[in-house]
């Protein structure tokens, strides 16, 4: 809990060296306009703070910022029937200036797994394929199940 100096009229602008605030870029749950980026931010940050943070550290031109606080549910109960609180967090919707757009990229693309020769994964996959082949019914019966005699 950092205590910043008290501000009174005429005081100099507060400058923070080495800010310990971390922004999480999240994929929007609901459909957002193309220039809007959604962040999860610590509770202590304000709209001005986010604007300065993005402009100075990431050099991203920021237009408007809107924030809200998401209430974390206190409804779930653990094995002792005690209520378990999910932490609250603040969400910021940042609109980029200068007509820029942003789409959240696909960070976990599907990759074709080609396992190397002689490795454990290859042997396991071969075994699984053999098992599946064994479980299949006789193709000569033409799709008819074993229940019917002959």
């Amino acid at each position, binding site marked *: 809990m950092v*205590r910043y*100096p*008290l501000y*009174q009229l005429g005081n100099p602008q507060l400058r923070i*060296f*080495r*800010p*310990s605030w*971390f*922004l*999480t*870029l*999240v*994929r929007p749950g609901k459909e957002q306009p193309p220039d809007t*980026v959604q962040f*999860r931010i610590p509770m202590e940050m304000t709209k001005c703070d986010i604007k300065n943070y993005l402009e100075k*550290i*990431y*050099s*991203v031109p920021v237009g408007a910022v809107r924030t809200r606080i998401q209430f974390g549910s206190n409804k779930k109960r653990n094995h002792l029937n005690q209520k378990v609180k999910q932490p609250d967090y603040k969400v910021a919707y940042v609109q*980029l200036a200068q007509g*820029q*757009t*942003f789409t959240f*990229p*696909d*960070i*976990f*693309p*599907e*990759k074709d797994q080609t396992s190397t020769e002689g490795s454990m994964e290859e042997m396991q996959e071969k075994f699984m394929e053999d098992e599946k082949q064994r479980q299949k019914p006789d193709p000569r019966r033409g799709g008819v199940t074993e229940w019917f005699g002959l």
Partner: protein
Amino acid sequence: MLKMATSSSAGRVLTLCKQFQNVFRISSATNSPHCSSALTKYQPRLYREKSPLAALSWYSPSSSVGQCRALHTTITRRGLDEFFDLPENWGQTTVKSGAPWTAKQLRTKSSEDLHKLWYVLLKEKNLLVTLEQEARRQRVQMPSPERIRKVERSMIRLETVVNERETALRLLQTGQEKGRPGAWRRNKFGHVYWYRFKEYAIPWYMNRKYKRKSFFTPKFVQPHLRLRIEKHLRENARKASLERRTQAKLKEKFPQVKVSA
């Protein structure tokens, strides 16, 4: 339109080298005899060039400090792309990373270097935290989650080093050790603790909430202090005697074993 173009890794290596070359040139003015050894250290970078972790050292052309021929490169200005890893790392199960910075290594760096390193670590942590959240969203395991702990530890150590330097400077300039004023005070339960002052716009005698706080122990609490001290001493004595008894038993069972003190 923010383009997420993949620039060549070679370009990025040179960019990073340029940044750190500049850093060296600034700090070389202060401590030139040490620099040459650090500059000529070379390690080929096979993975993420922007890893801020200390195991990687910096590439430089093999020239002495005085004749650094500067390479002209652009500063990385990828904007929101800095919240994501390099595209070749997307979808991997593990991403290589070096060791965290130790306090000993950080103490050798100048304050400007530490300031820049703080922001490098901050951006790295933002990247990792976005990756973690996206992995949770897609119900996939995050590649190498230990990186977050490494970055956190590096940042904590950086903070301690900076605070050490600040206290040293403050002691020299003012004679005060702590930046925030405070006093030793006794609370209602008889515990003596370092009370740190808070900044108010009004003096203490006008502050009603502060006046309700009592920094003394009432008379009826006095006997309980002695009882608490006695309990504490009894616990210590019990622990010591238990230790002695176990050692004696072990000595009886295994007389030839040498136990280090």
